[in-house]
């Protein structure tokens, strides 16, 4: 299974990023081949709708699950249209979370926050 995790740096000893849409990178990890790669999150610097774009990038990467501390409403809306499962991380360690997922110990993320698009404007 291919999983995606928002991370602070593009290395396996990076910690899980507290933001989803604004994470600088996404780790893509394949639990079967144990191969990993890092996806530049082009949404990180966008003015608005970062979660939407980040979610689009992850869907395009072919990930089947996401492990993240949180997820905005809009991103959740994008992901809802797919079969991707959203899991809540247990701590900041990439490896701990991958292990926990393999052992089926991660909970589904139910804390979807309403986003910060109030300062939008036309």
């Amino acid at each position, binding site marked *: 299974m291919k999983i995606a995790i928002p991370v602070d740096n593009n290395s396996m000893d990076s910690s899980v990023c507290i933001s989803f849409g604004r994470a600088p990178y996404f780790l893509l990890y394949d639990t079967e081949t144990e191969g990993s790669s890092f996806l530049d999150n082009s*949404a990180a610097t*966008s*003015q*608005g*709708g*970062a979660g*939407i*774009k980040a*979610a*689009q990038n992850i*869907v395009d990467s072919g990930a089947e699950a996401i492990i993240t501390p949180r997820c905005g409403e*809009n991103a959740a*809306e*994008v992901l809802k*249209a*797919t079969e991707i499962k959203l899991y809540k991380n247990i701590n900041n360690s990439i490896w701990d979370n991958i292990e926990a997922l393999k052992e089926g110990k991660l909970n589904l993320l139910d804390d979807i926050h309403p986003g910060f*698009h*109030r*300062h*939008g*404007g*036309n």
Partner: protein
Amino acid sequence: MKIAVLSGKGGTGKTLVSVNLAAAAEAAVYIDCDVEEPNGHLFLKPQDIKNEGVAVKLPHADPKLCTGCRTCVDFCKFNALAYIKDRLIVFSEVCHSCGGCLLFCPQKAISEKEREIGLIQSGISGNVRVVSGMMNIGEASGVPVIKKLLRDSRKENKDVFIDCPPGSACMVMESIKDADYCLLVAEPTIFGVHNLEMVYELVRLFQKPFGVVLNKCLEEENPAEDFCLQNQITILGKIPFDLKLGTMNSNGQIASRKHPKYKDLFLNLLETVRKEARHETASDT
């Protein structure tokens, strides 16, 4: 002349000042741009109400024509579009109705649909034409409603009083864009100074001529007044803190219509504003 009335937060007396100035003027237009919570009409109680919807355009892709090329998704700088599972998803609250995706779609698959986001209500209250904008609950931004309010008022040749939303964010910026003069309402507390500073920064950024009205004044120390003196900000007038005014205001009455004393107070304020505004425009050229 267009006068925008501003304050850093709600409850400072912005609506009190704008409705009373409008009522004191000979013929005026009052525009309530506080579209999240318009309350000027509660004081002016306009008659012959007319309602008009405000709609924005939302893109809609025809799935039969769309090839999934994602030109539109990449184009939209607001990230209002996603292409998931052979379908284009539009995030209506994120979309700014710029029409760009429509133009750039190579398949001409996108058309526009109207979506109503609010209402403009207008009526007459004696010498004042009252126009209020009301945005629908759940909308992210009232800017399109404010834009329409002010666009419609451009043809007015009477004095226009714009009751702005509180704060200094984009809805306020939109409300003062067209104004000839900005009137900042401040409370005589430390907290009031903080709120005043917010709008003070804003009007300076927009390079608008402005002055301050000190509201709820007592015979004691007034930090807002000190702030104005320190920064050489014109004080246009002081509104006393008195029980009678407070009672009239909380009963939804307009003091300048009820009592000659208050009519004089607001007429004087209006004259000062006019003089200041003329002076400012003259020194600009």
